[in-house]
């Protein structure tokens, strides 16, 4: 039987986000009612999972902390298993607005058929985003490098506000980077000949809780991501025809 309607899932990775997670879930229910909401509790030690559940979300409770990459990937696995057509990733800290999801969805459907749509803070001057200068410098450095490598303008490679279609869901359910996945995910999309595009969105600065990336970790983050970029370039990959199923390079057999 053919499915006559499309299904969409909002995945909210959350680690000790009891201050924000209920608001995020309620915001998603209110402003994106077509989306099922799945909170991935990444082994939190506080009441994140219970709060998310009583706010009306489905909750994946990871038995221990996997880091953001593993948590988001659990969302991809869930979406693949339950046959969702679209997945939007929304941070659990409240900096992404559910009201911006239709903008991502419109970009997904307007004919260019991208596989991944990223919300960018830096395309439009209208949505100025105030991050510490050190972090903005890092983001712009990655943006510069990635734009060169993928041959397409990338302005906000660290944005975690992204919409994916089934092809991207299948790719990332099987293989998603570990620690700081967003930048590498852009490269994977490129290497697997999927298409990505960016749309301007507004993001808020954090409202509560602690960011997973503090200033002390910034340098480590920079080095790790740069390593991933350059080592990733040397990795051999299959060359699929555009529009084909995304083949998966990293199996779990070593």
């Amino acid at each position, binding site marked *: 039987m053919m499915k006559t309607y499309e299904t969409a899932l909002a995945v909210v990775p959350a680690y000790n986000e009891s201050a924000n997670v209920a608001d995020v879930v309620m915001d998603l229910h209110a402003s994106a009612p077509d989306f099922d909401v799945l909170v991935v509790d990444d082994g939190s030690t506080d009441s994140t999972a219970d709060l998310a559940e009583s706010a009306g979300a489905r909750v994946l409770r990871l038995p221990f902390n*996997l880091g953001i990459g593993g948590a988001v990937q659990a969302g991809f696995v869930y979406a693949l298993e339950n046959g969702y057509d679209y997945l939007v990733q929304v941070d659990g800290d409240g900096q992404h607005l559910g009201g911006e999801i239709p903008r991502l969805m419109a970009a997904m459907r307007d004919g260019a058929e991208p596989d991944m749509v990223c919300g960018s803070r830096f395309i439009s001057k209208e949505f100025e985003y105030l991050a510490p200068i050190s972090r903005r410098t890092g983001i712009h450095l990655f943006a510069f490098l990635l734009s060169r490598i993928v041959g397409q303008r990338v302005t906000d490679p660290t944005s975690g506000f992204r919409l994916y279609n089934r092809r991207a869901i299948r790719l990332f359910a099987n293989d998603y980077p570990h620690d700081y996945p967003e930048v590498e995910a852009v490269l994977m999309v490129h290497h697997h000949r999927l298409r990505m595009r960016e749309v301007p969105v507004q993001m808020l600065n954090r409202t509560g809780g602690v960011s997973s990336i503090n200033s002390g970790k910034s340098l480590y983050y920079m080095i790790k991501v740069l390593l991933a970029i350059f080592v990733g370039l040397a990795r051999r990959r299959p060359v699929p025809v555009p529009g084909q199923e995304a083949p998966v390079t990293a199996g*779990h057999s*070593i």
Partner: protein
Amino acid sequence: MEAKLQVLAIVSSAALLLFVLELVRQRRFLERYALLWLASALVLLGLASWSGLLRWISTTVGIATPSNALFVIAFGFVLVLLLHFSLAVSRLADQSKVLAQRLAVMEERLRHQEQQHEEREQEPEDADRPPLSRLPGS
């Protein structure tokens, strides 16, 4: 190499070899991981007892004293073993990540189905409706 030193080298590498074999015998060691240890112990034992070979290696490579050559070779084995363990740990981390994700997805599905089941049980019995079919044996 001085005789005292040679005896020490032979005794310690033989002890290592026996210890590894004993661990394998007790099945506390997967053969996969024991192989590298066995190879290291055998090579070290061989070089410690066959001093002619060790002297030939040290002069060929340019190491002044044969005992240093033995030391360097042992260090090489340690490095390889460490690398091997890093690989094993990475693989285990990857596998446990997949397990954690699958477990969380299964748990969610189970909870969801239990909830549905409870809701169905709580519905008031409808006289016209036949009772829900049950699986045999339940």
